[in-house]
């Protein structure tokens, strides 16, 4: 996804001389293509994320659209107050790129697991939070948000991300994208974890349960009409995110259900606890957190049982 993002940035920068790329000394073999093509609009600020956000704020005030690139934990947290007092407070088009959200840097341990980036950035008014599901959607999201006057946070995978079958690079703000139809239960997922939701739907089908899967890449301030309408059509939904339970996609879906008075029952599937000392690859970490396809299928089946649907 990070390569797709840089490719999209190069295309944007070719057509728009406001596009500027800052990195806090990360992106080796990824950002060079941009740097070679637009050397005057690329700066490695060094290992200094707080300063990077401030520089981006100043650049945006002079008319640039700066993208700030680092690993998701560092982009979203090291300069969080700078993000709040800079692009958020000033209403500036700074773009924050968090690479490897969730457990993408699994073996690297908890300092590199971005599990609260979605919720803390979603907490800022005027911030647009987007976690694309695959490289094509990353590209679409970068382009679709380009004209937004306020800040945007992109949580993208760090590489080797498979395209989601049936998504075809669709993206629009607020809008959920259906990638699998179904009648009995709806999975709503954000980011690349959608692959696990699709796997869960496959398993459920073997048990005679028809599960739909939708991707909600834009985790907004509140749910848009598309998500509300979608939830209205299902008796039960499972939200899926590679993030802590608080404040992210699950909170958005729960808010929509409660605020709109929908009959849809909800199971929030997210990371439920802090680090316990054991690291592993992304697959291992997801499984330990109950976010693998088998666990998600089990959660959906249990939800249907609890509401008398099977």
């Amino acid at each position: 996804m990070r390569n797709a993002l840089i490719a999209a940035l190069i295309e944007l920068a070719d057509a728009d001389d406001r596009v500027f790329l800052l990195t806090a000394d990360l992106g080796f073999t990824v950002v060079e293509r941009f740097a070679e093509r637009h050397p005057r609009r690329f700066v490695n600020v060094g290992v200094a994320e707080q300063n990077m956000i401030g520089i981006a704020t100043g650049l945006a005030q002079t008319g640039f659209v700066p993208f700030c690139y680092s690993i998701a934990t560092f982009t979203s947290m090291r300069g969080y107050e700078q993000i709040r007092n800079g692009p958020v407070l000033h209403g500036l088009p700074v773009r924050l790129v968090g690479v490897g959200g969730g457990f993408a840097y699994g073996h690297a341990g908890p300092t590199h697991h971005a599990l609260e980036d979605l919720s803390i950035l979603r907490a800022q008014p005027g911030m647009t939070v987007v976690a694309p599901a695959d490289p094509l959607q990353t590209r679409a999201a970068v382009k679709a948000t380009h004209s937004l006057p306020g800040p945007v946070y992109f949580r993208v995978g760090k590489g080797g991300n498979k395209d989601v079958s049936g998504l075809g690079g669709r993206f629009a703000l607020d809008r959920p994208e259906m990638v699998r139809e179904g009648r009995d239960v709806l999975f709503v997922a954000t980011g690349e974890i959608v692959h696990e939701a699709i796997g869960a739907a496959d398993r459920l089908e073997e048990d005679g349960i028809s599960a739909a899967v939708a991707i909600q890449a834009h985790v907004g301030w509140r749910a848009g009409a598309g998500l509300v309408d979608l939830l209205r059509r299902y008796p039960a939904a499972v939200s899926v995110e590679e993030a802590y339970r608080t404040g992210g996609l699950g909170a958005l879906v729960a808010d929509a259900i409660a605020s709109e008075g929908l009959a849809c029952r909800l199971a929030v599937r997210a990371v439920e606890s802090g680090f316990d000392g054991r690291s592993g690859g992304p697959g291992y970490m997801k499984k330990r957190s109950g976010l693998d396809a088998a666990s998600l299928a089990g959660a959906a089946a249990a939800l249907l049982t609890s509401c008398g649907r099977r």
Partner: protein
Amino acid sequence: MAPMNEPADAGRLRRSAAAMRKRIIEQSLASNVGHVGSALSIVETVVVLFESVMREPGTRGPARDRFILGKGHASLALYCALRERGIVDEETFRTFAGDGSLLGVHPEVFLPGVDVSTGSLGQGLSIGCGLALGMRERGLDSRVFALLSDAECNEGQVWEAAMFAAHHGLSNLTAIVDLNGLQAMGRTKDVIDLDAMASRWAAFGWDAVEVDGHDVAALGATLSAPGTSGRPKMVVARTLLGKGVSFMEDRIEWHYRNLTPELAAQALAEIGAGS
């Protein structure tokens, strides 16, 4: 317009400084707000910048020089400068720190004339780096001025910005440290010693000079010239907290205290006698 930093101009700037001190006292009393000493500490720097050195300060002109008040709690001095230049009208000025006012205790960009919102120490200079870099890339010859408090340099981000500005040769960036030696909980030398401030910046690659921060002629001379040899410029301004009011000068409580009518009258009399 050529900078007017000649000695002939110094008398006018000194009178402006005295007038600003009076306004700070009067409005602090009227609004019942503290930070009086911090605002008095930077009066000469703000007067020299806004009335002599900066190009189109506080306007919306794209080629204007920019001003960042890192020590946002001294906002009243900035508001006085914007009032003096007619950017803030009298009625608006008098709303300072009131309910619904655009003139908060810390400055916000929502008030015309404020270039950058501040209030959280240590973040302004980084924004100044971005402004300076952006202006240079846009081919503008504007300058960026960032006024920091001495204790603000306790923040690590200041030194991230210091390294960046020097590495990228941001000679259009000038920072001023208001070295009054007092911070919220005590003397800087007792909390985090900031001895040899100018040398620290010079070691980081800045063209660093030290001046008497209450000498308008010296401030004018150094602030009107950008850093030499393509370096960003650091002006360490030695000042007194509460300058111009005997019972406030160098007294930490005037980082916080509010004025009473009696104290305000005494302060105004001293400022009047001194100008």
